[in-house]
């Protein structure tokens, strides 16, 4: 299956700080999806990106698809404790999941 790397694996931030996670592929992607998984929960769909250079926003979350469609990022502005969880990207026709970035927000 397709493989994607996510960095960082873990991130601890003070509440109010920004957070960014990156998803990188060695091959060109047709699309990419982002999911959030709360501790003990199941993945919840956040967004899908399809177009080269696409940028989408959801409140404090900004998602970007690289121009070459080989990487993507998720940026959270002014983190809150409710943002705690693991963020996964998923790629390919069968949506293979990346390794995830675990976010801890310190109040």
């Amino acid at each position, binding site marked *: 299956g397709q493989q994607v790397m996510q960095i960082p694996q873990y991130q601890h931030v003070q509440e109010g700080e920004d957070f960014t996670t990156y998803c990188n592929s060695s091959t060109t992607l047709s699309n990419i999806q982002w999911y959030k998984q709360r501790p003990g929960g*199941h993945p919840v769909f956040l967004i899908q990106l399809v177009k080269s250079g696409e940028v989408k926003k959801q409140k404090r979350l900004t998602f970007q698809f690289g121009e070459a469609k080989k990487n993507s990022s998720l940026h959270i502005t002014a983190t809150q404790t409710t943002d705690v969880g693991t963020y996964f990207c998923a790629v390919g026709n069968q949506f293979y999941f990346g390794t995830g970035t675990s976010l801890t927000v310190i109040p």
Partner: protein
Amino acid sequence: EAGVAQSPRYKIIEKRQSVAFWCNPISGHATLYWYQQILGQGPKLLIQFQNNGVVDDSQLPKDRFSAERLKGVDSTLKIQPAKLEDSAVYLCASSTHAPVYGYTFGSGTRLTVV
């Protein structure tokens, strides 16, 4: 709309025993997926169904795992015999044929093999 239903929620078995998981996808969702998520890792696709046909089962350990989706609705995933390394959460997800709104996951079944 009702979500993806999975049962049981938890299961503890001894190694070499067999176990089965059940999934009822969202009504009208043609595509159904089974994922295995080992603690600390991302979900790993085991099998994808389109209606009652298998689209991708390349990562399903077929010597011990089997899955079926009779009538294109409910699905069952079976492990026989179970190994210690099968301890994981088994997630079922469903989507429309063109999942532009992503997958909807069930709450999963947490399997512990002792």
